[in-house]
């Protein structure tokens, strides 16, 4: 039943795992963009921007993920339907569930990533920024050469954490009908009546994804930290 034959669920489950990975990867990317913008807003000198950034992180970390997914899916769908109606179509038009899911998980992930990036920026020694100014670097050069790489370095452990969260949040996207790992396990369980078996298999696949990505982040962290004092003798 979990084999790869014409009656087996194995192939579908693997495709579903790939789908989960894709949703999460796109979500992480959307979250990285939103997160860096929000982090920048929260660190800026403008009170208005700081308030906007603060509100974003408070709201999207404080509201259940499932609710955000519903909001994005149904909100997005009614927007699409409204546009459809205006253009002469009739009836309900759904937002593609992949787009809705990636966007929703991305928005949530952005709230967590913003905090990670903000913390990473604050971890850069002030003197190094002064040295960059003193040598004549303009703002964009300072960002590209000094701030960016160091934020990246300090952010890796936190981003690894957010990735893990997003990977699990993506399971909630199954409510929109996207054939991700969660949804496919559910369907397989329902149609074969082997609930326990398929949920165990689904769980194992999630674990493989998370532990595998954990390993990638750990090695990235080690690589980025080769300049840190603790890596003395490891190089």
């Amino acid at each position, binding site marked *: 039943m979990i084999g790869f034959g014409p009656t087996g669920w194995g192939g579908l489950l693997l495709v579903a795992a790939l789908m989960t990975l894709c949703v999460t990867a796109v979500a992480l990317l959307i979250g990285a963009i939103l997160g860096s913008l929000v982090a920048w807003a929260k660190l800026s000198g403008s009170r208005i921007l700081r308030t906007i950034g603060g509100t974003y992180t408070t709201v999207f970390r404080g509201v259940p993920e499932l609710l955000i997914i519903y909001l994005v899916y149904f909100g997005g769908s009614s927007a699409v339907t409204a546009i459809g109606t205006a253009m002469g179509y009739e009836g309900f038009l759904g937002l593609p569930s992949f787009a809705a899911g990636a966007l929703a998980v991305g928005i949530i992930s952005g709230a967590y990533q913003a905090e990670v990036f903000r913390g990473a920026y604050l971890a850069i020694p002030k003197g190094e920024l002064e040295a960059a100014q003193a*040598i004549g670097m303009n703002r964009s050069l300072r960002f590209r050469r000094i701030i960016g790489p160091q934020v990246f370095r300090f952010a890796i452990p936190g981003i690894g954490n957010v990735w893990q969260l997003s990977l699990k949040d993506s399971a909630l996207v199954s409510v929109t009908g996207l054939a991700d790992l969660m949804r496919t396990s559910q369907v397989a369980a329902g149609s074969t009546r082997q609930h326990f078996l398929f949920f165990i298999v689904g769980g194992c696949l999630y674990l493989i994804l998370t532990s595998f990505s954990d390993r990638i982040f750990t090695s990235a962290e080690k690589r980025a930290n080769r300049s840190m004092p603790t890596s003395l003798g490891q190089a």
Partner: protein
Amino acid sequence: MNPTPLNQTGTTMAGTTRLSVRNIRKSFGTHEVLRGISLEARDGDVISLLGASGSGKSTFLRCINLLEIADHGEISVDGELIQMQQRGGKNVPSNRRQVDRIRSELGMVFQSFNLWSHMTILENVIEGPVHVLKRARAECIAEAEALLEKVGIAEKRHAYPAHLSGGQQQRAAIARSLAMKPKVMLFDEPTSALDPELVGEVLRVMRSLAEEGMTMLVVTHEMSFARNVSNRVIFMKSGEIDSDGTPDDLFGQGGSASFRQFIGNFGG
């Protein structure tokens, strides 16, 4: 020493004013840290700025390359006036590009070294020439290696700052500044964060720079450096210049009563 080079107008470079600061004032809140400081540094001058902590000497140095913005006063580097304007009741530089360019002509050495921790020593040294001055990388690497040789840490060029001693880091920081071929070097208490046994190696590098004719402004507590290496000593007290003269003069009979009291605390 090399023969004195000529500039475009044909006059000798010796005696050219490299740095001119006029009537700098700076307050933090209601506390006036600098109360009208003026100073001229000519080519090859090595000026030691002495004073008790809180006398404003570091703030003064930081005003010169605009890490702090003076509330009032004028600064010229190699004859070029830094353009300032009033905005919202505050004095601000009116041309960011000019500020960046002038900063690239002023070397700054910090008390806490401030090497970029994500780059190796060599990368630190070539960073400015390659990315600020946009010079060819290969050429910059060759020059950087020569500079690291000169400050005595060539063998550490592929190490990261965190793996070096304080004295080595400070020498690397000096090399990083020198790689920009600065017109003036500013030193902000370069040996104050070092263990006593590491102070000597940094002072030796600074001394050899002075002997090569580098124009230097040095905020320091090293009386031996002020006395033996610099050709001029300025003693600051509560945001003003209290005494100004040659080391022989000041450490001899010319120093004010407060200067004598100050150096008395150093057992000098």
